[in-house]
C-alpha cells in the first residue's frame, strides 16, 4: 500500500515537473523568441503594476503563465457544424494523455532514503520502459490524426494527415536510435541505464551515453523535434499554409491541450535525451560518498544531499536542453514537406540502421553489454 | 586371343564426324568442302579398318580386337556393356563396308555433281555407313540392333532422297515399313535368346558370352530364335516374303543403290546369320528353312530379272537372287562360303551398279534398256569394267564370283540338299542369261538411244571411272583368296574364318570338280542363249514373249506379289482401320467418351455456376458452415 502511495506521489510529481516545464517552455516561447528577434515580446499584463513598483522590468511573466491559460480555459468551446462531436472532444485528450503517461517511467533521481525508508526516484519502475515509451509515443498519433479528421475542415484534415505521416515516419528513426541505446546498455530499464552512466573514463570523462552513441543522440534529437511537431518540422501546423493545421477548428481548453501536448513532447524529448545520453541524474564525479575529483581529491557529501544533487542535476540538464530546443525552434527555417520526408526516410532511417548494425558488431565483439 | 585396340572407335568416329559436319556446316561451306569431307571420312575409316585387319592377320588364328566403350543399360542383374569387337568375320565385313563404301562415296562426288542437295546426300551416306559399321562392329546383339535400325532408317531417307516425287517418297516408305515387319521379328528373336539364357541365370547379350553359354539354349528355343531372327534378315536382306521393297528402292540415286546392294544393309542379314552360326547349328530345322528360302529366292528373283526392261531393276532382282545364294550357303552350314560370296558380291555388284549409274549418267537419266544399245564405243571404260563384273557374277571360271558361288553350291550339295543344289545350279544358268541380256542390250547391237540424247553421250569423269577401275580389279581377282582346296594357298578364306564360323562338315560325299562343271556349264548355256536371242536373232524374244504371253506378263509383273500383298494384307488392314477402328471404336467409343465427359461437365457446370454469386461474404458463410462442421466433429470426439 505504501508502495502504491509513493508511486502515486512520484507520478504526480513527475507529471507536475512535465507540466511546469511546459509552462516554462511557453514562457520561453514568448520571451525567448522576442529576445532572438530583438523585440520586447509579451509585455502588457503586469497585474497592478506589482513588479514595476519594486523597480523590476516588465517581464510579462504573469501574462504568459497566468493570463494565457485563464483566457484559454474560459473561451467558448466551439464545435464546427458537421464535425464529429465525440471525436472532436476526444482528440485533444488522446493527444495529451499518452505524453503525460510517458513521464512516469523517467528516473529523475537516484534512490533517496527518508526516515529509514528507501525510495526509488522513478514513478513506475517498469523493466521494459524503453518499449513502453515507444508504445505511448505511437499511440499519441491518434490524437492529432482524429483531431484533424473530426473537425470537418479540409485544412484540418490536411494538417492531420501531414502530422500522422510525419509522426509515424520519425517514430521509426526514433525507435532505431533507442534500439541502439538499448543495445549499448543491454537493458530496457531506464533507471539501470542511468546507473551505468555513473563513473568516469580516463579519470575525468563522465561515462555518458553521448560519448558512446553520438549518432544516436543526433538521431533522437532530430526525431524528437519532429515528433513534437516544432519548427523546423512544424508542417502539420504551418500557419502560413494550413492556418493552424489540425488545430484550426479548436478553441479554448481543447486548443490549449494540443498546444500543451507539443510543449510536453518537447519536455519529454529533453528528458529522454538526458536519460539516454547525458547521464540522467548523474552529477559528474559525484559518487554515493561524495565528489571524486580527477586529481584524486575526495569531497565528502551527505547521502541525502547526494540524492538531492542528483534531482537538481537532472532538472538543470533538462532545462538546458529545453532551452536548446527552443533556440532551434527560433533559428531554423521550416522544411518543405518532401524535404521532411526525404530527411526522415533517406537520411535518418538508413543512418539509424547503420548505427544499429555497427553497435551490434561492437557489442558482440566486446562480449556483450552485460 | 583378344587384344584391346582403342583405335577401333575411330572407325565409327570418322563417319560420325562426317555426319555432323555435313549436317550442320555442309550446306554453308559449299560443295568443295562436302566433296572433301564426305568421301574423306570414309577413306580414313577404311585406313583404320585396314590397320585393324592387318593386326588380325598378324595374330594367330582366332584372334580378335576389342574396344570397350561404356555401360549402356543397367537394370538389376541385366546390363549391356557397349563395346566394339573385330574378329575374322567382322574384319572381312568392315573391310568390305569401308572399302567398297569409300569408292562409292568417291563415285558419288561425280554422280551428284549437278544435284543441289549434295550436303544432305552426303549426310545420309555417311550416316548409312556409320550405321552399318555399328552393326558390324557391335560386340552384342542389342548394339547390333541399333545399327540394324540405323540402316533401315537411312535406306528410307536415301530411297526417298528426291522426296518431292510422291512415288519416290512412297517407295521410301514402303522400304521402311517392310523393314519394320522384319525388325519386329528381330526384336522378338533377341528377347527369345535373352529369356532362354536368363532362364538359366545368364543375363547377357554379348556374342562371345552367348556363344560360351550356347549349350544352355534348348533346340526349341534356338529354332524359335533362329526363325525370328531370320524373319528380320528376310526384311533387311530382301528374301521371300519381304523382298518387295528392294526393287522399288531403285528410285534413289544410283550410288545409293550401289551402297545398299553391295556394301551395306542387304548383307546385314547374311552377316547376322553367320555371326550367330552357333545358334543356327543348334537348330537344324531353322537352317533348313534358311537354305530353302535362300534357294527359292535365288531362282524366283532370277526369273523376274529375265524380262525386266529397266537396267537397275534387272540388277536389283539379280541382287535379290545373289542374296538368295548367300542364304543358301549359310543355311547349308557353309558360313564361310556365304560370307565369301558377300565379299565378292560386294565387289561385282557395287561395280555393276556404278557402271549402270555411269550409263544412266551418260544418257541423262535414261534407265530403259530398250532405249540403249551400241554404247560399247562411246563408253569404253564403263563397258569393260561392267563386262568384267558380268563375267564375275555369271561365275565364269577365274573371276571372283566363280569361286564363291561354287563353294556355296558345293556346300548345298554336300549338306544333302540335292533339290536346293539343283535349283541353285539352274539359277546359275538364269543368271548368265539375264546378265548377258543386259550387256548385249546396253552395249551391243543397234543403237536405240533417242536422237536428241545421242550427240552428247560421253564417258564419265575420272572421279567416277577410277572407282570403276579399282572395283573391276577386285571383281576380277578378288576371288582368288578362296581358291579350291589344294591349289596354291588353297581355301585360305575359309581357313581364316573357321575360328569364328567353324569348319564345314560335309554330310554327302561329292566331287567338287563335277559340281563345278555342271554349274558352269549351265551358266555357259545361259550366256549362249542370251547371245542367240539378243545378238543373233533379235526377233526371237519378241516372238517368245508373244507366244507365252501369260508367262511373260507374269514375270514382267513380278509374279504380282505386290498385288497379292495388297489383297491379303493391305486392303484388309485399311478396311479394319476405317470401318472398325475409325468408325466404330474411334468415333463412337472414344469420341463418345470424350464428348460425353464434356457434356456431363458442361451440364454440371451450368447447374453449379448458380452457386457462384461472386459475393465474398456468401463464400465466407459456406466456409463458416464447414468450420462449424469440423468443430462439431472434434466436439463429438471430445465428448465421446
Amino acid at each position, binding site marked *: 500500500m505504501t508502495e502504491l502511495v509513493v508511486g502515486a506521489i512520484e507520478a504526480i510529481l513527475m507529471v507536475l515537473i512535465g507540466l511546469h516545464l511546459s509552462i516554462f517552455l511557453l514562457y520561453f516561447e514568448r520571451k525567448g523568441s522576442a529576445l532572438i528577434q530583438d523585440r520586447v515580446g509579451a509585455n502588457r499584463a503586469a497585474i497592478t503594476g506589482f513588479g514595476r513598483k519594486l523597480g523590476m522590468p516588465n517581464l510579462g511573466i504573469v501574462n504568459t503563465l497566468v493570463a494565457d491559460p485563464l483566457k484559454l480555459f474560459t473561451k467558448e468551446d466551439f464545435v464546427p457544424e458537421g464535425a*464529429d462531436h465525440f*471525436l472532436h472532444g476526444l482528440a485533444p485528450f488522446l493527444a495529451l494523455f499518452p505524453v503525460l503517461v510517458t513521464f512516469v517511467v523517467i528516473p529523475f533521481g537516484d534512490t533517496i532514503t527518508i526516515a529509514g525508508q528507501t525510495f526509488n526516484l522513478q514513478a513506475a519502475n517498469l*523493466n*521494459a520502459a524503453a*518499449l*513502453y515509451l*515507444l*508504445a505511448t*509515443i*505511437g*499511440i499519441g*498519433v*491518434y490524437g492529432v*490524426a*482524429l483531431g484533424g*479528421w473530426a473537425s470537418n475542415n479540409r485544412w484540418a*484534415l490536411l494538417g492531420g*494527415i501531414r502530422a*500522422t*505521416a510525419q509522426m*509515424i515516419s520519425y*517514430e521509426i528513426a526514433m*525507435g532505431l536510435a533507442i534500439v541502439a541505446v538499448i543495445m549499448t546498455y543491454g537493458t*530496457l530499464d531506464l533507471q539501470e541505464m542511468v546507473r551505468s552512466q555513473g563513473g568516469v573514463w580516463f579519470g575525468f570523462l563522465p561515462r555518458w551515453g553521448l560519448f558512446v552513441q553520438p549518432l544516436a543522440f543526433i538521431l533522437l534529437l532530430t526525431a524528437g523535434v519532429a515528433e513534437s511537431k516544432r519548427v523546423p518540422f512544424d508542417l502539420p501546423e504551418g500557419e502560413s499554409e494550413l492556418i493552424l493545421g489540425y488545430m484550426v477548428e479548436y478553441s479554448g481548453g481543447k486548443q490549449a491541450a494540443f498546444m500543451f501536448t507539443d510543449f510536453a513532447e518537447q519536455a519529454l524529448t529533453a528528458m529522454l535525451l538526458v536519460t539516454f545520453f547525458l547521464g540522467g541524474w548523474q552529477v559528474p564525479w559525484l559518487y554515493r560518498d561524495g565528489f571524486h575529483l580527477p586529481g584524486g581529491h575526495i569531497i565528502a557529501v551527505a547521502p541525502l544531499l547526494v540524492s538531492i544533487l542528483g534531482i537538481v542535476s537532472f532538472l538543470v540538464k533538462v532545462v538546458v536542453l529545453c532551452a536548446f530546443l527552443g533556440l532551434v525552434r527560433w533559428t531554423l527555417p521550416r522544411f518543405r514537406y518532401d524535404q521532411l520526408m526525404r530527411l526522415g526516410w533517406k537520411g535518418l532511417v538508413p543512418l539509424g540502421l547503420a548505427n544499429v548494425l555497427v553497435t551490434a558488431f561492437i557489442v558482440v565483439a566486446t562480449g556483450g553489454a552485460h | 586371343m583378344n587384344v584391346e585396340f582403342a583405335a577401333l572407335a575411330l572407325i565409327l568416329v570418322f563417319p560420325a564426324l562426317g555426319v555432323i559436319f555435313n549436317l550442320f556446316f555442309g550446306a554453308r561451306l559449299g560443295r568443295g568442302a562436302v566433296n572433301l569431307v564426305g568421301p574423306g571420312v570414309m577413306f580414313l575409316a577404311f585406313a583404320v579398318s585396314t590397320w585393324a585387319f592387318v593386326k588380325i592377320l598378324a595374330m594367330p588364328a582366332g584372334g580378335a580386337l576389342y574396344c570397350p566403350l561404356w555401360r549402356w543399360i543397367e537394370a538389376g542383374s541385366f546390363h549391356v556393356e557397349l563395346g566394339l569387337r573385330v574378329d575374322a568375320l567382322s574384319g572381312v565385313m568392315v573391310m568390305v563396308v569401308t572399302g567398297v563404301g569409300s569408292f562409292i562415296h568417291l563415285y558419288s562426288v561425280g554422280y551428284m555433281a549437278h544435284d543441289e542437295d549434295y550436303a544432305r546426300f552426303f549426310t545420309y551416306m555417311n550416316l548409312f555407313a556409320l550405321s552399318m559399321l555399328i552393326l558390324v562392329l557391335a560386340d552384342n546383339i542389342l548394339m547390333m540392333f541399333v545399327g540394324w535400325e540405323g540402316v533401315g532408317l537411312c535406306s528410307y531417307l536415301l530411297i526417298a532422297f528426291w522426296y518431292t516425287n510422291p512415288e519416290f517418297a512412297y517407295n521410301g516408305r514402303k522400304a521402311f515399313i517392310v523393314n519394320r515387319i522384319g525388325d519386329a521379328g528381330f526384336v522378338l528373336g533377341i528377347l527369345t535368346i535373352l529369356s532362354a539364357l536368363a532362364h538359366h541365370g545368364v543375363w547377357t547379350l554379348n556374342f562371345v558370352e552367348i556363344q560360351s553359354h550356347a549349350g544352355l539354349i534348348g533346340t526349341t528355343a534356338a529354332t524359335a530364335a533362329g526363325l525370328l531372327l531370320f524373319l528380320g534378315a528376310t526384311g533387311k536382306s530382301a528374301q521371300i516374303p519381304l523382298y518387295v521393297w528392294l526393287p522399288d528402292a531403285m528410285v534413289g540415286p544410283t550410288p545409293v543403290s550401289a551402297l545398299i546392294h553391295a556394301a551395306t544393309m542387304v548383307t546385314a542379314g547374311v552377316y547376322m546369320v553367320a555371326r550367330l552360326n552357333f545358334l543356327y547349328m543348334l537348330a537344324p530345322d531353322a537352317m533348313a528353312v534358311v537354305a530353302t528360302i535362300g534357294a527359292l529366292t535365288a531362282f524366283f528373283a532370277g526369273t523376274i530379272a529375265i524380262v525386266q526392261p529397266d537396267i537397275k531393276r534387272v540388277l536389283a532382282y539379280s541382287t535379290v537372287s545373289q542374296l538368295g545364294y548367300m542364304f543358301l550357303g549359310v543355311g547349308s552350314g557353309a558360313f564361310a562360303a556365304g560370307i565369301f560370296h558377300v565379299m565378292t558380291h560386294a565387289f561385282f555388284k557395287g561395280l555393276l551398279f556404278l557402271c549402270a549409274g555411269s550409263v544412266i549418267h551418260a544418257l541423262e537419266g535414261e534407265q530403259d534398256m530398250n532405249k540403249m544399245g551400241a554404247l560399247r564405243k562411246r563408253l569404253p571404260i564403263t563397258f569393260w569394267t561392267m563386262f568384267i563384273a558380268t563375267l564375275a557374277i555369271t561365275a565364269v571360271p577365274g573371276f571372283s564370283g566363280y569361286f564363291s558361288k561354287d563353294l556355296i553350291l558345293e556346300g548345298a550339295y554336300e549338306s544333302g540338299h540335292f533339290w536346293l543344289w539343283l535349283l541353285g545350279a539352274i539359277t546359275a544358268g538364269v543368271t548368265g542369261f539375264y546378265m548377258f541380256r543386259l550387256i548385249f542390250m546396253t552395249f551391243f547391237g543397234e543403237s536405240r538411244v533417242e536422237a536428241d540424247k545421242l550427240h552428247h553421250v560421253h564417258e564419265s569423269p575420272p572421279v567416277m571411272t577410277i572407282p570403276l577401275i579399282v572395283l573391276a580389279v577386285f571383281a576380277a581377282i578378288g576371288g582368288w583368296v578362296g581358291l579350291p582346296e589344294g591349289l596354291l594357298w588353297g581355301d585360305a578364306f575359309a581357313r581364316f574364318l573357321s575360328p569364328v564360323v567353324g569348319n564345314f562338315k560335309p554330310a554327302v560325299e561329292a566331287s567338287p570338280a563335277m559340281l563345278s562343271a555342271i554349274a558352269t556349264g549351265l551358266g555357259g548355256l545361259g550366256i549362249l542363249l542370251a547371245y542367240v536371242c539378243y545378238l543373233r536373232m533379235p526377233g526371237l524374244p519378241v516372238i517368245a514373249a508373244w507366244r507365252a504371253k501369260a508367262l511373260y506378263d507374269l514375270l514382267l509383273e513380278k509374279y504380282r506379289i505386290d498385288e497379292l500383298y495388297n489383297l491379303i494384307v493391305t486392303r484388309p488392314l485399311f478396311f479394319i482401320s476405317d470401318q472398325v477402328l475409325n468408325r466404330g471404336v474411334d468415333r463412337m467409343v472414344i469420341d463418345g467418351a470424350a464428348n460425353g465427359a464434356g457434356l456431363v461437365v458442361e451440364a454440371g457446370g451450368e447447374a453449379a455456376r448458380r452457386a457462384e454469386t461472386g459475393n465474398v*461474404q*456468401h463464400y465466407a*458463410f459456406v466456409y*463458416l*458452415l464447414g*468450420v*462449424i462442421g469440423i*468443430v*462439431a466433429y472434434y*466436439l463429438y470426439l*471430445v*465428448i465421446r
Partner: protein
Amino acid sequence: MPAGLFWFLAALSILAALGVVLQRNPVHCLLALVLTLLAIAVLFIGQDAIVVGFLQAIVYAGAVMVLFLFVIWLLNLPVESGPTGHLALKLFGTLAVAALLAELAVFLVPSRLQLKFSSAHAAGYGSIDALSQTLFSEYLIAFEVTSVLLLVAVIGAVALARRTTQAELQERKEASARVEKAA
C-alpha cells in the same frame, strides 16, 4: 494478472470488438478496433508476454491501424445510412455465429480443459532475451522468410497502389506504336 483487471479488460475488449462490428462510421470502427488491440496488448503483458504486448501496441495499434486510417481518409468513405447488406445473410450469419460460439463454449467447460499447466514461469519468461533466444534459434528460418515476405509486401503495395503517370502512359503508347510499325 489480478482478476479485477482481467474482467475489466475482457469487458472492454468485447465491447470494443462489438463496436468494430456495429459502428456505422468506419473511423469509429477503427477506433474501436484500436481499443480492442490495446486491451489485448494489456492482456498479453498481464500474462508475462511483455515484448509481444508492447509490440502489439507499437506495431499493430501504432502503425498498421494508422494505415487503415489513411485508407479510410483516402477513400473519403461516407457513413453508412440505414441497414446494409443482405438481410438473409445477416440472419443466417448470426445464427451460424451463434452456433459456433455455442460449440466453442462446450469445449471450454473447465472440466474438459485437462491439460497440465504450470502457472509459475521461469525467470525472464516473456522478456526480450527469451523471445530472441527462441526466435533466432528455433524459428530462425521462419524469421528470415518473414523478412522476405515483408519486402514482397512492400513492393506489392507500391506496385498496386501507384498511379500510372502521364509520362508512362505516353511512353507505353509510343512503345506500342513502335511495335505496330515494326510489324
